[in-house]
Each structure stands twice: as structure tokens, then as C-alpha cells.
């Protein structure tokens, strides 16, 4: 890429144009928006995990100061409003379907987790609504709570529709071939790992503001959503049975989502319903406690892994049996996350001839579990990369070399895995080599010895990950049980003066689309980036689109923009041909100019735009005026970012504190549009992965009370928990899209936890420690050291 001419095009680290407002506190979030006459909603929530509701007495609340209305599940049921739906289901091993119990907007007869909404109180102020809720009397008949998901099958049944509390029992791969491969293996490495439960903790808690216009019977909903169009579709078509045209959904600035704002939650639906019921706008904003209790959590798996090796330490087969916790109700993507976004990734970067996996999704009396940064792929990477390291240790090979001999060779692409996916392209050794070089892998033992002199245990750990993202081919998604399409849309409008408005179906809630997308358009049209505005987040303005999650915005949304721009260029060539009195085939578009090949006759892009809108001299017989194009892009495959992360840690044996002292991340994201934004995504992802590996743990007690329901007990990573990251890249451009891009949003969170835990185990390996669960808290690490010493003493 030519640095001089491409000041702000593809490949340059342009500063984020949206940051001015965010860094100066001028972002406009849902809670910042107020409507005249609005009332505030407060949800009365269950404080028990599992109970029958015998009676709800709302009388005192109804007459409390400022209270306008108190409603319960009966009121919702009377209006026949449906609950949130599951967007993707899978078939069970026995041929039955995923069990989909209803999820009422407000509890009907039963509560199923601490935080389950029982009633909504509407009042003039939020304080009055809360005070009103305190006067509601709920008479419970408590049932025994189901918290331990591994044994949920033996617990009290949570839903009539879900026998044994098992939503689904799914499989993928060839069980027989895998069993044969394992029985013929020279060695079988067995490991049981747990993927700890996480709270998403977006900086902005969820919020909704719903308004009903009785003149045209329509609603407007401002909400904290990663995908306003999906929210509209689900609310209109599935919950309220109204035409989409009667509901406008706006997701203004959104302060982080990490997956937790993909789904339609009951609160926003209740606000929509209530806005008509009371004839006033209804506002609700979660406080942090409600965010902890009711935002969908992430992860929460247990995986039993068996990896078979032949006499050359080549992998012959892999079997993974997984049990995962999906919580009290099925959330929109809760079923696909541990199945098709997890089981399909089990081949990793390795050539594995036989793979089989079984996943059981369990119901428990905890809040719903759904996608969280990485969604299924971190769980797959964690179990595989932990197992790879354990296997290398068992056979006495260097973990890097053990990976290397098992990598899918570079000439084997496209590579068909045994778990449905076909990787289009990749080259894994270069990023392993580069990461090793970045961290100075070969001199690690010197550093270990030096640390030992200071009384510290130093360790190094590798994670070579792959992920499938850029969700993705609708045909594949549909074949695998998805109920939605997974294309993306864009509308590119050239204004008369040649400036551009891009309307995207993707949604930015921190990713920097206003910058990245503008760079693509600027690059393709050869115009300055300032001339490009990016519009998103409003169903009245943007074309129907699927929103942002699964690292899909650039690969799918960016590609749609690119395609729309191609159409603009094609039409512009026709206009140019007319203006220049040349044949369309002779027109070249270069550096923002339309040139008749081999001549000096040319028209600038701006002149074409003007001609399109002021068609005084224009081929009206063959071409419509105006310059605006739509594109819907449905890729033929996922994109497959891959990379190697290497972590280096020091463990203080006196306290068990793990300090991350160095980190090398070498990723292959294909082409980079804005390397600075990519690096920011990598940093953030690693920070979240370090959070998972060392600090974060959502913990319910045996009664189903969330013990870690505030920052006093739930530990988020802070700047001083993190090292300075070394970030590097290798590049195999994706063959799936024209831009050659892959996704980068989740990679850091996918790659990092196993690198870190492998490093901790490596540090403690001189003591004989072979296992460590996440999070590796000081207490846990200290205990492992103590236990190893007492074993040694025996």
C-alpha cells in the first residue's frame, strides 16, 4: 500500500473519528434520552431461585405515591404478548428437537432464577417506582434450586417442557470412527477442564425507552442493542404480532455489549407493551446490580477431552464430551453457542482425522447464559490448547514443536475438518514462529533460572487458536438450524456534491465502524475520509441488517459496503462515458477519476455526482438519475482468523500471585483496514481473556444466590493486571470476501486464556503441578503449591 497517496485509505491507522464525542463525555446513550411525560419503570424481581408463586398482592403498590400502574404476568398474558424466542435450535441425538420452554415477559406462576421479573411498577420517578415495588407482596412456595449444572438432570424439574432439565443433547462428528481411532492410538491424553462463568459487564447497563403514538398506532423504542433490526423483527413479528412498519427501533450510542446486548430482553418488551397501556413513554435503566443479575452470562462449560496420538505423536482422534449451563430460559443464541459455534472449532489448527463431540445443554436456576465475546470458540480453544500442552508434556515434546507437527500443512487448504467447517485458507507455522521470536522463546530457560534465583516460578504458555467468524453464510447457518439469515446490508448514497452517506446494517458499540467503514469507501472512491459519514443503529434510516456480533461487521458488513461502492463505480462509469462521449468499456476509474483509457479526457468523481443529480447533460434514456446503491452480501463461507499467543508469567510461591510479565500475540486477520483499531481490539480481547483466566468468576451459592453480584466480589481486569502487549501479524487474505479481511473482535479473548493457564502450569511444573482451573486466583495457586509440597513430603 502506498503510504503517501493513501493517507486515510485501507491500511492506515487513522484516529477514530467517533472518539471526540466519547472521550469528551458527549456520547448520547439511551438513558440520556428523555421524552415529555415519560414514566419510569422498575421491575420487581425474584429474590429466590426457584419457587411457585402462590399469590402476588399489588394493592398497596398501586396506591403508593407517584405510582401510575402495576402489572404482572397476568396482564401480559391477557394481551397475548409472547416472550423472547430462541434464534437457533439444534437436533438431539435421539432425533428429538431442542426443548423450548416459554419465557414469559413477567413470571407466570413460577420464578426460575434470582432476578426473574415478577411485576413492573410504573411511576413518575424511578425512586417512586422502586418504593412502590417494595409494597408488593409475593407469596412463594419455594422449590429446591438447581445450581450445579453437571448434576442438573437429578434436580427438581425447572420447566414442564424440559425433562431432566436437559434442553438438548447434541452431537457432531463420527463417533465410531473416533472410537476406533482412539482405541488404535498409542497414547490417549485425558483432560477435564472447566470454562468458568463470566458476567459480561458492559460499561453501559441496559436501558430502554418506549413510546406509543396513538395517532398512527406505532411505537418507537430506544434501546441498548447490538442489532436494532433483529430487535424490531423479534418484537414485531414474534412478540407483539404487529407490522414491522409500526415499530421503529433506535440503538443510539451503545456502551459496549460483548454479546450481552444481542438479544431481546423482557424489560424492553415490557416497556413497549406498557407504553401503550398507560399512554405515556416508559423508561427503564438497569442499575449495576440488575446488570449482574439479569444480563445473560457467558461460558460455563465442563469438557471431558480425550486426544489420541500415534507413535510419531501425531493426533489420530479427538473426543470431547461437554456439559454446559444455559440457565433458566433459552436465550436467543444460547443453543448455537455451545454447539455449532463450539463443536465445529474442535479441529483447531490441527489435522485431526477423526473427531466426535457430544454437548448437553442444561437448565438451571441461574440467569440465562448466551454469547459472550468469542461465544463458543473460546471454550473450544481452551479445551484444545490445554490438551495440546498437556499432551506435549506427557510425551516429552516441546509444546511448540508438538503443535507444529500436527498443524494443517499450508498446502492442504481448503481444508475440510471432521466437524463440518471447511477452512478456506491459512498458514499456521509463520505465526507460531513469529510469536516465538517476539517473546524470545528460545532463551526462556535462562529467564526461568533467573526468576528462580529471585524465588519466583516463571512459566511460558502457548495457544494456537482458530476461529470461525464473520457470521456468515446463510445457507450454512440455515442448514445448521439457524432461524435467521446471516448476510449483511449496506446502502451507499452519493450526495450531489460528491460526499457520501453510508447506511449500514451493522451496529457499532465500541468497534469504530464510523472510521473503518469510511476508510473503505474513501479508499475505493479515492476521496477524503471526511467526505464519508456512516449511519447506523436506526431501523428507519438503515437497511434491514443483522447487527454486530461474531466479529462479522467488517467481513460481512464491510463487504456489503464494498459491493455497494462497486455498483456506484459501475453506474458512475456509465455516466462518465456519456459525459466524455466514450464507450463505457473504455472508462477506467483510478484515483477518484474516470478516464478514457489512453487519453487525457477525464471526469472527477464529484462531477459525476453532480451530473447524476443535476441531469442537464445525462443519459436519461438508459440510466436513472441519482447515485445511490444497495448491496446485500451473503458470504460463501465463514472467515477463519488464526494466530498464536504466548504468555509468560511469574508466580510468587509465598502468595500465589500470578503476574503476567510478557505477552506476544501474532494474529492472521487477513488484510487490515485500520491497524490501530485492530490492535485496540486485540488488546481489549486479551484483557478480557486475562480477566477470565486470572480474575473473573460468576459464583452462585447452592441456593442460587449470585455471590459475585458487585465489583466488591466480581473481579474485573484493571490496567495494572496487564503487561504491555507485543502485537504482530501474518497475513493470508481471506478468499471469501473481496476485501480479504477476517474478523479481529473476539480473537484476543479466544486465544488468551489457555496461553495464560498453560504458562501458570508450566511455571509450577517443577513442583509437579499438572492442572489449574480458571480463574487462577492467588488462593488457588497457593493451594496448588501447598498441595504439591505435601505430596512431595509424603
Amino acid at each position, binding site marked *: 500500500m502506498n503510504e503517501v497517496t493513501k493517507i486515510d485509505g485501507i491500511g492506515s491507522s487513522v484516529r477514530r473519528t467517533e472518539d471526540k464525542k466519547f472521550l469528551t463525555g458527549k456520547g448520547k446513550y439511551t438513558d440520556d434520552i428523555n421524552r415529555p411525560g415519560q414514566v419510569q419503570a422498575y421491575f420487581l424481581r425474584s429474590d429466590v431461585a426457584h419457587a411457585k408463586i402462590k399469590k402476588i398482592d399489588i394493592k398497596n403498590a398501586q396506591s403508593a405515591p407517584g405510582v401510575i400502574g402495576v402489572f404482572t404476568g397476568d396482564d401480559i398474558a391477557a394481551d397475548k404478548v409472547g416472550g423472547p424466542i430462541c434464534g437457533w435450535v439444534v437436533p438431539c441425538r435421539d432425533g428429538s428437537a431442542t426443548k423450548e420452554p416459554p419465557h414469559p415477559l413477567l413470571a407466570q406462576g413460577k420464578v426460575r432464577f434470582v432476578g426473574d421479573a415478577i411485576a413492573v411498577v410504573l411511576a413518575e420517578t424511578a425512586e417512586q417506582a*422502586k418504593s412502590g415495588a417494595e409494597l408488593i407482596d409475593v407469596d412463594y412456595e419455594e422449590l429446591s434450586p438447581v445450581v450445579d449444572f453437571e448434576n442438573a438432570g437429578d434436580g427438581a424439574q425447572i420447566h414442564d417442557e424440559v425433562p431432566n432439565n436437559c434442553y438438548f443433547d447434541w452431537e457432531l462428528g463420527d463417533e465410531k470412527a473416533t472410537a476406533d481411532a482412539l482405541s488404535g492410538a498409542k497414547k490417549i491424553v485425558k483432560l477435564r477442564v472447566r470454562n468458568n462463568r463470566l458476567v459480561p459487564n458492559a460499561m453501559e447497563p441496559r436501558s430502554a425507552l418506549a413510546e406509543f403514538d396513538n395517532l398512527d398506532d406505532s411505537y418507537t423504542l430506544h434501546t441498548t442493542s447490538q442489532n436494532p433490526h433483529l430487535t424490531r423483527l423479534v418484537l414485531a413479528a414474534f412478540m407483539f404480532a404487529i407490522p414491522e412498519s409500526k415499530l421503529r427501533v433506535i440503538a443510539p450510542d451503545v456502551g459496549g455489549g460483548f454479546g450481552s446486548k444481542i438479544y431481546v430482553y423482557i424489560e424492553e418488551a415490557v416497556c413497549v407493551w406498557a407504553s401503550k397501556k398507560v399512554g405515556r413513554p416508559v423508561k427503564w435503566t438497569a442499575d449495576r446490580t440488575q446488570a449482574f443479575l439479569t444480563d445473560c452470562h457467558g461460558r460455563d462449560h465442563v469438557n471431558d477431552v480425550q486426544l489420541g496420538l500415534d507413535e510419531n505423536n501425531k493426533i489420530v482422534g479427538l473426543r470431547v464430551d461437554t456439559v454446559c449451563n444455559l440457565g433458566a430460559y433459552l436465550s436467543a443464541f444460547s443453543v448455537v453457542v455451545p454447539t455449532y459455534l463450539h463443536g465445529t472449532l474442535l479441529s483447531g489448527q490441527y489435522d485431526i482425522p477423526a473427531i466426535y463431540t457430544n454437548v448437553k445443554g442444561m437448565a438451571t436456576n441461574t440467569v440465562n447464559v448466551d454469547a459472550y465475546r468469542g461465544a463458543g470458540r473460546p471454550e473450544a480453544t481452551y479445551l484444545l490448547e490445554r490438551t495440546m500442552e498437556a499432551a506435549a508434556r506427557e510425551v516429552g515434546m516441546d509444546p511448540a514443536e508438538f503443535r507444529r507437527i500436527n498443524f494443517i500443512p499450508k498446502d492442504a487448504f481448503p481444508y475440510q475438518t471432521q466437524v463440518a467447517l471447511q477452512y478456506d485458507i491459512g498458514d499456521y507455522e509463520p505465526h507460531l514462529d513469529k510469536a516465538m521470536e517476539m517473546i524470545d522463546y528460545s532463551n526462556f530457560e535462562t529467564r526461568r533460572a533467573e526468576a528462580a534465583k529471585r524465588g519466583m516460578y516463571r512459566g511460558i504458555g502457548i495457544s494456537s487458536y482458530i476461529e470461525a467468524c464473520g457470521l456468515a453464510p446463510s445457507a450454512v447457518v440455515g442448514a445448521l438450524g439457524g432461524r435467521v439469515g446471516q448476510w449483511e446490508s449496506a446502502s451507499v448514497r452519493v450526495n450531489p456534491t460528491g460526499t457520501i452517506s453510508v447506511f449500514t446494517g451493522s451496529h457499532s458499540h465500541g468497534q469504530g465502524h464510523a472510521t473503518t467503514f469510511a476508510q473503505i469507501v474513501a479508499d475505493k472512491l479515492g476521496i477524503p475520509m471526511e467526505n464519508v459519514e456512516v449511519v447506523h443503529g436506526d431501523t428507519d434510516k438503515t437497511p434491514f441488517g443483522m447487527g454486530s456480533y461474531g466479529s462479522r461487521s467488517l467481513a460481512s458488513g464491510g463487504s456489503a459496503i464494498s459491493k455497494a461502492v462497486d455498483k456506484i463505480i459501475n453506474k458512475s462509469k456509465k455516466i462518465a462515458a456519456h459525459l466524455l462521449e466514450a464507450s463505457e468499456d473504455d472508462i477506467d476509474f483510478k484515483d477518484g477519476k474516470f478516464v478514457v483509457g489512453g487519453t487525457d479526457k477525464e471526469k472527477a468523481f464529484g462531477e459525476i455526482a453532480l451530473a447524476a443529480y443535476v441531469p442537464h447533460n445525462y443519459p436519461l434514456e438508459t440510466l436513472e438519475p441519482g447515485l445511490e446503491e444497495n448491496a446485500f452480501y451473503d458470504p460463501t463461507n465463514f472467515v477463519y482468523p488464526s494466530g498464536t499467543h504466548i504468555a509468560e508469567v511469574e508466580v510468587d510461591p*509465598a502468595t500465589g500471585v500470578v503476574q503476567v510479565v510478557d505477552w506476544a500475540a501474532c494474529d492472521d486477520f487477513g488484510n487490515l483496514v485500520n491497524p490501530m483499531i485492530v490492535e485496540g481490539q486485540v488488546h481489549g480481547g486479551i484483557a478480557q481473556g486475562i480477566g477470565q483466566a486470572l*480474575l473473573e468468576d460468576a459464583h452462585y451459592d447452592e441456593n442460587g444466590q449470585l*455471590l459475585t453480584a458487585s465489583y466488591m*466480589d466480581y473481579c474485573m481486569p484493571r490496567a495494572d493486571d496487564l503487561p504491555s502487549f507485543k502485537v504482530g501479524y501474518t497475513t493470508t487474505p481471506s478468499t471469501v470476501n473481496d476485501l480479504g479481511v477476517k474478523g479481529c473482535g473476539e480473537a484476543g479473548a479466544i486465544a488468551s486464556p489457555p496461553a495464560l493457564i498453560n504458562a501458570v502450569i508450566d511455571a509450577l511444573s517443577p513442583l509437579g503441578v499438572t492442572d489449574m482451573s480458571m480463574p487462577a*486466583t492467588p*488462593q488457588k495457586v*497457593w*493451594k496448588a503449591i501447598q498441595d504439591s509440597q505435601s505430596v512431595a513430603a509424603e
Partner: protein
Amino acid sequence: MYSTKYVKPNSTTEALEAIKSLSEGKFLAGGMTLIPTLKQRLASPDGLVDISGCKLDSIADEGETLKIGAMARHISVAESAVVKMAIPALAKLADGIGDRQVRNRGTLGGSVANNDPSACYPSAVLALKATVHTSNRSLAADDFFTGMFETALEEDEIIESISFLKPTKANYVKFPNPASRYAMVGVFVAQFGDEVRVAVTGAGEGGVFRHQEMESALSSNFSADSLSSVNIVSDGLISDLHASAEYRANLIKEMTKRAVA
């Protein structure tokens, strides 16, 4: 939060009058503990008496002792040249409390009055043989802390200042709770000639406490080595999600070693 009355008197006398006129009034200092409690509706006082106007924030070297006003903010103690000169360990302690926002608001009096079992200051008060001066009496540190979140303070009694005895040598080492960054274990060691006082916070079921065995070991030989033979029993130590009693026992010894090293 429930709505409540708010007054801001200009002197301790006025503050005492104000609190007497309320049935369940509360003094408000930095509000770092009290306000979150109110927001969560865990308390509903009928009035708040803000004592930040009562001129209780002076810091003075009084020779044998260092006297700090109850309303001295953590940041003032951390940055005070007087404190750094007289008892640097105290400045270090204040500098390690919470985060910048908390240090800008939180006060010595509020911390000590609240006696959170994980708070840092109580260990300094106990180890530095401090005297707590209240609106009607002076209390020795050993008599002041009576249990987790409990003190000898009576209702409507204001802490006005605290006098810390200047040690020959002192240090505070804290192992922060990874989430809250309060002390999971904090140890304040103070040496006064032959006498050594070791106060432990964050760990005791009854709140801050002195550790006699370590005190006597260090009195005879003020070194980390002398602690090796001391057995820290885990009975009576807090056991929670973050740290078992055994782990806390280990941290007590380790933090003490680091404090004397």
C-alpha cells in the same frame, strides 16, 4: 435511596445538636461507605449531618504524636509532608486505599468509625497506640475497636481527631482483595524502642486485631527470620469466596515478613 434531610453545620457543637434533633440521623463524612448503603436502600436515616464543614481536617505534628483530624481525606494524609516526615507508613497506607476517587472523598474518621474488617486505617490506629479524640472523651486504640463494624463510639458521638504515637520504625503492607482492593490481609507493624506492635486487618472475624506471638518474636529480634517459627493459627480468621482462613493465615505471616524486611 429514600429521600432524606441534609444539613451541613459549621461546628461539632452544631453537628451534635443537629443529630439529636433526628431520631435516626447519621453523620456524613466522605460518604464512600454511607452513600452506597443509602443508594441500595440498606439504611434509611431520617437525616444526614454532613460534618465536612466542622473544621476537623487539620494535620499537626505535636512532638510525641501526630494528630490528624477526622475529616482529613485519604489523599491529604497520603500527600501531607508532615505525615510523610513523622510517620511515612501512614502516608503509604492512605495512598493505598481504594482508588483516586475514593481517596479524594474518604476520611480517616469515617474509616475508623465504620471499622470495616477489611479497612486499612484501623490497623494503624491499633499498631500506633493511637488515641481517638471524640466529642466528649479520649479513647485508647486498644479500647476503641470492639468487633466487626463495631466500635466503642456511642450514638451521637463524633470522632474529632486521632493522635498517632510516632514509632521508631513502622510499615504497612497490604495484600489487596483482587476485586475490591480493600485489604484481604493488611499488616501494620510499628516499633517503639523495644516494643513492637503488629496489627492485622482484613483477616479477623472480630475485625482488626493485634498478633501477640509475632509482636513478641519481633520484640526480641526485629527481622523476617524471627517470624519463621511463629505459628499463625487460622481459627477466628475470615473464610470467604476469595480467601480461606488458611490462606489468610499464610498471608498474615507473609505480609508481616514483608513489612519488617
